[in-house]
């Protein structure tokens, strides 16, 4: 592909992945490439990133796409690990499986050693090897076979490697001090996650080589963290999302403070203005205003914490509590088929991890039979905590409205909504899925306005609007 065509296709792919690349930025990027040349791949990456990526959250997508359009090497790479050879001998299935097990085990061992040493070169080789040996998806005929990171990773089972690596880190080595269990687990998880991403990148690269980069970009590059659906996030992504919560809350809070500041410019303070004008010969160059009284909402959050939507509830609660000062009062309740109050479990600035653990525990208190039952939960909430909802409060219900075909008790929700000043329902499912199966989304949606809230971006927008 000619260089300019490649560049255009690359920018197109960035746009398709949600990066808002303007024409002028595109031109800057061309200029940067002209200045830098193509010899140094990392400099090229840096130059393109500086001109095209203006938001750190987009960096992961950028890197994945950069690797596709400007791949470091061709074919099976250094180790020469192409697809495994067709089986020509007549070993029994059991023998083949045995060989495979030994190979997987050897790879795991080398992998955890390389991760322990943080040996980048060796890790790259092992990525090649893992994909080459275990990532092939056989297909009949030319162009139908492919590569899969799922295959490769499932064989290797990264969780085993995490545990093994953690153990090694806890033991320490000659030039490394032993780590505590907590630190060892964290470090191991992060390193293995990094390697997993390498494997995914390598698979994308190989598929791109066979089917074209556009194809891969369309089908496999994950969206940026704030667009990943709560209900489909992977473990590493959930971690990353959790880390985003506080910075997000901080940005949101300062934006709100500014807006309120502007809105709150009260009436003219005559005396202060006159006094200040003395220094300018009686000319009132600056005017002073009285502050306006702030008005704050009392928030009552009622969240479904059953398995399917627990992450969503957790993120929302973390965000709400990180913004606690924005509300005059926050009370939080969790439910599955029973209700528990969790207000005390949250403190502003509390450790998000601990909070999440406590929240998971609360799910036990919130469940009687363990099957989500919105009708029952609403009824229980009204009878035990009904006085939490009053004319000054805003009621926020979080959940997918999937109630196992039980009576939704719309009357109870209507009653609660009538008592509150405002009521909203946030649903983490895409609108297209509402009302499918056991979802009672539009029934509830008729009682209180229901808003689709699938990712951090939508969540932030919503929270901004209600404060």
């Amino acid at each position: 592909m000619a260089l300019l065509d490649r560049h255009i296709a690359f920018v197109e792919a960035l746009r398709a992945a949600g990066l808002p690349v303007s024409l002028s930025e595109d031109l800057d990027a061309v200029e940067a490439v002209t200045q830098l040349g193509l010899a140094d791949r990392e400099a090229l990456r840096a130059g393109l990133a500086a001109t095209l990526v203006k938001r750190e959250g987009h960096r992961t997508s950028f890197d994945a796409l950069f690797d596709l359009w400007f791949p470091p090497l061709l074919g099976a790479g250094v180790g020469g690990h192409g697809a495994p050879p067709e089986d020509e001998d007549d070993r029994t299935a059991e023998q083949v499986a045995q060989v495979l097990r030994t190979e997987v085990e050897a790879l795991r061992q080398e992998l955890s050693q390389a991760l322990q040493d943080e040996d980048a070169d060796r890790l790259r080789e092992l990525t090649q090897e893992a994909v080459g040996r275990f990532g092939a998806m056989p297909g009949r005929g030319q162009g139908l076979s492919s590569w899969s990171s799922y295959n490769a990773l499932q064989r290797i089972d990264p969780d085993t490697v995490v545990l093994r690596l953690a153990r090694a880190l806890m033991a320490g080595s000659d030039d490394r001090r032993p780590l505590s269990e907590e630190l060892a687990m964290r470090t191991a998880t992060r390193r293995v996650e990094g390697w997993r991403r390498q494997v995914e990148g390598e698979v994308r690269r190989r598929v791109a080589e066979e089917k074209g980069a556009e194809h891969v970009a369309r089908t496999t590059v994950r969206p940026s963290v704030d667009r990943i659906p709560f209900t489909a996030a992977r473990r590493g992504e959930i971690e990353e999302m959790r880390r985003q919560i506080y910075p997000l809350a901080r940005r949101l809070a300062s934006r709100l403070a500014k807006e309120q500041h502007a809105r709150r410019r009260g009436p003219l303070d005559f005396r202060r203005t006159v006094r200040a004008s003395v220094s300018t010969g009686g000319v009132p160059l600056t005017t002073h205003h009285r502050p306006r009284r702030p008005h704050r909402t009392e928030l009552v959050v009622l969240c479904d914490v059953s398995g399917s939507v627990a992450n969503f509830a957790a993120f929302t609660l973390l965000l709400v509590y990180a913004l606690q000062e924005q509300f005059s009062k926050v009370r939080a309740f969790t439910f599955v088929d029973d209700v528990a109050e969790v207000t005390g479990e949250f403190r502003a600035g509390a450790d998000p991890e601990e909070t999440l653990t406590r929240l998971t525990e609360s799910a036990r208190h919130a469940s009687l039979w363990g099957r989500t039952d919105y009708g029952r939960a609403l009824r229980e909430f009204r009878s035990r905590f009904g006085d939490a909802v009053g004319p000054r409060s805003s009621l926020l219900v979080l959940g997918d409205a999937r109630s196992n075909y039980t009576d939704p008790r719309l009357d109870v929700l209507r009653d609660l909504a009538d008592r509150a000043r405002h009521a909203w329902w946030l649903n983490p499912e895409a609108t297209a899925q509402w009302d499918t199966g056991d979802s009672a989304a539009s029934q509830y949606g008729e009682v209180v306005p229901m808003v689709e809230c699938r990712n951090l971006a939508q969540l932030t927008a919503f929270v901004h609007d209600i404060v």
Partner: protein
Amino acid sequence: MTTWFDSPADAAKRLHDSGYLADTATATTAYLAGALEKPLLVEGPAGVGKTELAKAVARATGAELVRLQCYEGLDEARALYEWNYKKQLLRIQAAGDQSWEQTHDDIFTEEFLLTRPLLTAIRREEQTVLLVDEVDKTDVEVEGLLLEVLSDFQVTIPEMGTVSAVRRPFVVLTSNATRELSEAVKRRCLFLHLDYPDAAREKEIVVSQVPGVADRLAAELVETVARLRELELKKAPSIAESVDWARTLVALEVDDLDEEAVGATLGVVLKHASDQDKALAALRGHQAGARRR
């Protein structure tokens, strides 16, 4: 046209010589900012060397640094220019029976103009690095002003006419990302996200800034700091804190970072009591293990 750096490698070398250890991305982006004459927006957590980068570019190129420190409530009068009203009023009172036209022409002249950093940087004829520090602290209106100034590097003063830059300054904007800057500003800038450096580079920074620190102690220190950053703390330790910590240890003549030393000096690195507790608990296992060896 001025050239700032000849190549990314030249940028890396000259920044290094002036005490700033830049990685590939930083050196490349600094080079491009000079070559494309585009403002450079540097974003990242506190204490990773955003401000220092601007200062280092000035040192490395022999340019003068003009700094606009942003804060909430910063306005055009503080950022760009303002008329010296008091002086003007005095002049008007002293004008006697001079015609108003004459007085008007007199009081809107250089003599009564107070130039602020943005105008200063544009009017300078020598090499200049303009640092707009902590731009996320300002209000949106100031961003609009920056946008105007940084687009064509010219300023119109209604009473005096348009001032254009004779020589474009090298502009660095820094931000802690407490809020998202407007798309328009970002479009005009090159963007660099600075993060904590890897262990090797941080060690180099510590060693270069703290005379008398032993190599092994520096290595141990940056390793420990890296661990602390892995814990989710209220305020993760920055490079500045690593350097402070090394200075403290050298001053106390500590040469092994054992449990006692960490316990006694952790306050230099972590400012919140709850962070200290969390860190001590997490480090304890690793220190105990170390003693066993």
